[in-house]
């Protein structure tokens, strides 16, 4: 169980991830994996999100609960179908957090990291996203019930890798590594 301060921090990170670009995150899977990637480049947040290996790989229960039932920022999140975005009140909170962080010399680094994550990962389908994450962090697939499709099934691997190559998000060299 997270204490109130931790919940506040978790919700603020989610607000930042959602607010840093003006479009919804495509799915819950994207939200989970994008925050997981942030925890890889900014390990300090792992203590709040506690990513664990689960059915769909790295998963944070704290993140899911915070979006579904926020404690601090009650009306911050908007869920429409699969998509998650900030409500108008969430957008105001985002602006407040940005203003508060102006004196923090690392805040701009965090925002750049979040923006880069959204820039690259939002454009992947859920399958492509899981394929990339499982192959880069195979340890996250330990208890996954779907990882064979992304790690072992050669036909599926080729399909996802080809699709990523056609999108231009991976090179031929990376494609060759992913289909082995």
């Amino acid at each position, binding site marked *: 169980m997270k204490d109130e301060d931790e919940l506040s921090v978790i919700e603020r990170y989610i607000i930042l991830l959602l607010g840093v670009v003006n479009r919804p995150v495509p799915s819950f899977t994207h939200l989970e994996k994008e925050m997981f990637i942030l925890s890889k480049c*900014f390990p300090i947040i792992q203590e709040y999100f506690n990513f664990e290996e689960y059915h769909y790989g790295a998963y944070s229960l704290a993140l899911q609960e915070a979006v579904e039932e926020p404690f601090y920022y009650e009306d911050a999140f908007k869920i429409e179908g699969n998509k998650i975005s900030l409500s108008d009140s969430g957008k105001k909170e985002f602006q407040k957090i940005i203003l508060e962080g102006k004196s923090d010399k*690392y805040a701009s680094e965090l925002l750049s990291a979040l923006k880069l994550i959204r820039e690259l990962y939002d454009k992947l389908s859920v399958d492509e996203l899981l394929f990339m994450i499982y192959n880069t962090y195979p340890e996250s697939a330990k208890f996954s019930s779907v990882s064979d499709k992304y790690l072992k099934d050669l036909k599926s691997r080729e399909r996802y890798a080809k699709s990523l190559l056609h999108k231009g998000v991976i*090179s031929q060299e990376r494609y060759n590594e992913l289909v082995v």
Partner: protein
Amino acid sequence: MQKEPHKIIADSSFYLCFLDDINDPDFLHRIIEKFDLYITPIVECEIKIEKNKSLKENKKIIRIGNYIAFGEILKPFLSKKIIDKGEHEVIGLGFHFFMIGVPFYLVIDDEEARSFVRKNLSFLSSCLHGTVGLICLCCCYFKIFSKSETMVTFNKIENSKFRISKEILYKIKNAVESC
């Protein structure tokens, strides 16, 4: 009016071109006199900065450390060869500089990494140069080198193990001759 860049974020091949391939560290140091060079952790290791006193103690070489490892974000998209050389960290830092509005040159020689930038972070394309392209800028725009010493260096590069296509080098030599 956009500010003139005085910062460079370069991959290891840029440093190794001068330190190793053509063995002309003074040429590199003249570039360093004009610019601040931001150096990422893997590039530090690749160029063995700890063993190079003149680089290690140079205040214009800024070792950025790893508070946020931007490269981790790019890791799934790039091949092992690129990751091992630390190009992902260079691209990530370039993205950050762009986001905070700092003018800079992004020096990347590997075609896979350059192509990734052009296709996925196209707004960085105008900052993107190769080592030889940057030397051309240093000669024609910043007047750090004379044309003749630039051509001598290009010839050394052509005869070294530094990887560059003859066509590109020919084009850049022409650009220097006509600037």
